[in-house]
């Protein structure tokens, strides 16, 4: 594999700064909990369903129970102690939820926490055991059917809004060569403070992420994987206000990859930074346990900022995502760090610049399956020009050893992909990989040449930005508030979801954290 020889001292400095910049975030996450983390605990213990009486019956029981605990005893102890203390006299979690619905449930913090802790631990362990079993089952299926025959894995998006339409489209995409199917979520789901329930048919520009939708798609892809003799991976989005719960649902239903970025929700969705960082750490612990590969969202920076001027912000974000992911227990093979082919094609040497940026990421993260995102910003509706650009994108992906290649559509920004658009896009990928998939063997950019110099320029700029971030008293948190990322300023006390964050009390107990951390140790 082609790897640039990066300046080792500069690389060490970058990692050290990233760790320092992220330290306050880790502290924050360790000392706080959120409503969604607590709901995720109840989901691991098996609580499902919605309150049929409230609203249109869309409010999940996990929301009802967590809200009731918060109202009665606060969130700062976690929900495990009050909930399993209330269950001490017998009865199921489901029955307790119904008492919450009826307004008769009473919560308190037990004087002797041990019985409630033991009961909570046992209940949550059943969910963790199911996640472990799913991980083992994935390994079995990969051993049985096999992995895709080459890298990069071909990643294709499906999104009709209706899970029953998505299924045949996803199966068709797998038959046409897709290794990874991503089901895009309905517009705005990231801002819902609950996870919808059941099979859904009414998403807008995407399909709701629900446990049942996950289950249906998983089963359909297992079927087509057996038919094709190739394990077909399923992807969804652990982002937004319910990140921890979606991560749990993904683990329970054997999803294989999850979009899970440290800062995306803060910068692009105006979700409160504290909420995001606390939710983030828990969800990443779940992904680590479940053997799920995360995909980070650095491509998004380049859709707003200039891909040449701001290339170093991608590197900085990758380094921050890496350090936060490692801290949460994820291993290198699980880090689908993102980057994108978004340089304006009118810029001279644009392709060489793309190669430099892609090789920089490859060199910095040699063991991570990098996620290579196609052009979107300069796809103008000229479908012929777009097809050519996608071809160059595919070539850059093959030449620089990217791990996951999101298939670009020539009709990007025109229509949601037609059947023929997907087919043509996959033909483009196949042609490039078959014609030039091993070209990296012959491709060695010389030291001191254009590509090498550009990669080092970007890395140097990244180190300078990391220095500025790490010098902030609250590291990354304050840097985001100051608009250091150049996109927008997000105050630690602003944005959506802050009221769902609580500082942990000394007696707080989260059995899921305990069970997941135990294995890491």
């Amino acid at each position, binding site marked *: 594999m082609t790897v640039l020889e990066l300046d080792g001292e500069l690389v060490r400095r970058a990692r050290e700064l990233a760790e320092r910049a992220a330290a306050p975030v880790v502290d924050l996450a360790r000392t706080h909990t959120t409503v969604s983390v607590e709901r995720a605990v109840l989901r691991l213990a098996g609580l499902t369903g919605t309150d049929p009486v409230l609203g249109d019956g869309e409010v999940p029981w996990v929301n009802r129970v967590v809200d009731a605990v918060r109202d009665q005893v606060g969130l700062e102890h976690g929900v495990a102690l009050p909930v399993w203390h209330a269950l001490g006299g017998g009865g199921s979690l489901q029955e307790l939820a119904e008492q919450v619905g009826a307004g008769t449930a009473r919560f308190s913090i037990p004087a002797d926490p041990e019985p409630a802790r033991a009961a909570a631990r046992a209940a949550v362990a059943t969910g963790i055991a199911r996640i472990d079993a799913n991980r083992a089952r994935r390994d079995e299926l990969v051993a049985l059917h096999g992995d895709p025959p080459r890298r990069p894995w071909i990643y294709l998006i499906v999104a009709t809004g209706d899970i029953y339409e998505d299924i045949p489209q996803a199966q068709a995409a797998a038959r046409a060569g897709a290794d990874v199917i991503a089901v895009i979520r309905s517009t*705005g789901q990231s801002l819902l403070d609950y996870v919808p329930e059941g099979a859904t048919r009414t998403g807008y520009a995407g399909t709701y992420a629900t446990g049942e939708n996950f289950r249906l798609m998983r089963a359909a892809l297992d079927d087509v994987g057996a038919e094709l003799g190739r394990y077909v991976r399923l992807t969804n989005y652990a982002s937004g206000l319910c990140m921890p719960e979606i991560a749990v649902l993904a683990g329970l239903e054997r999803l294989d990859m999850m979009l899970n970025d440290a800062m995306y929700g803060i910068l692009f969705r105006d979700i409160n930074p504290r909420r995001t960082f606390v939710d983030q750490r828990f969800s990443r612990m779940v992904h680590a346990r479940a053997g799920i590969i995360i995909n980070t969202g650095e491509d998004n920076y380049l859709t707003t900022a200039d891909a040449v001027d701001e290339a170093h912000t991608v590197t900085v974000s990758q380094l921050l995502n890496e350090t936060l992911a490692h801290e949460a227990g994820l291993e290198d093979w699980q880090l689908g760090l993102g980057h994108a082919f978004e340089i304006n094609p009118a810029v001279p040497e644009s392709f060489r610049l793309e190669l430099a940026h892609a090789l920089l990421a490859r060199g910095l993260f040699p063991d991570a399956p990098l996620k290579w995102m196609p052009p979107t910003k300069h796809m103008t509706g000229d479908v012929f020009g777009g097809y050519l650009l996608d071809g160059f994108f595919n070539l850059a992906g093959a030449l620089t050893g990217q791990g996951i290649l999101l298939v670009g559509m020539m009709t990007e920004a025109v229509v949601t992909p037609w059947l023929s658009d997907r*087919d043509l896009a996959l033909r483009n990928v196949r042609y490039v990989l078959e014609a030039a998939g091993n070209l990296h063997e012959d491709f060695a950019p010389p030291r001191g040449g254009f590509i090498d110099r550009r990669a080092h320029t970007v890395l140097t700029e990244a180190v300078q930005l990391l220095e500025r971030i790490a010098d902030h008293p609250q590291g990354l948190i304050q840097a985001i508030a100051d608009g250091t990322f150049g996109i927008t300023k997000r105050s630690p006390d602003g944005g959506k979801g802050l009221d769902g964050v609580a500082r942990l009390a000394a007696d707080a107990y989260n059995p899921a954290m305990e069970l997941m951390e135990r294995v890491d140790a």
Partner: protein
Amino acid sequence: MRPYGDTTGDGMVQTSFTLPVPPGPRAEGAALQLAHKMGIEPAMVVHSHGIGEGFTFFVVYGSVKHLVDLDAVHVEVRAYPLLSPGEVNAAIKTRMRRSLVVLGACIGTDAHTVGIDAILNLKGFAGEKGLEYYREMQVANLGAQVSVPELVHAARARRADAVLVSQVVTQKDAHLRNTRELAGAFREAMGEARPLLVVGGPRFDPAMAAELGVDKVFGRGTTPGEVASYLVHALVPEEEPL
């Protein structure tokens, strides 16, 4: 006049489409029939291939028999030009010489912030970044279920140039009632000095602005760029200040 391939008047066009039939002579016949009905005659299927089971993709070249009558072409002109984010920023910076202050909210009981978020959030909508992306705009999104008095208060405190309100829920015409209440409250509290009032939502009729007492109504599918362009048109002076 006719389309131009390589000779004046040859009428040549190319098109591509997919039919839900397996590939083969029958599929090509079906493609030719469609091309003929589209006015392409003679038509040539220059390429076809199957997609999955039961679909065929075609590329067709041919001469279209229709004529274009240039005199009969009428172009709808938007009352204001569509500007790129760079042009919007430049217009505000050079002609207003301060940030343009935008306040957004969902009012009444409406908890659906999808609309206002699509216009304001950096993430944006339909491939366009939201107004937060515009360097020269100062954007505050108050979120859902903001009361009209709160909104008036916030607009005054922040000296908002424009107030953007989205409404999704239309039960019993709640969106129209809420909008009239909004317009009335701003008129009463601030009179002529009130900010520009812009409402939007999937069920609004853009022709209703005057009737509702607001400055502009945006309907389904409106993108952040259209809103930004309108704000420049309505709020930024035509010429640079002397």
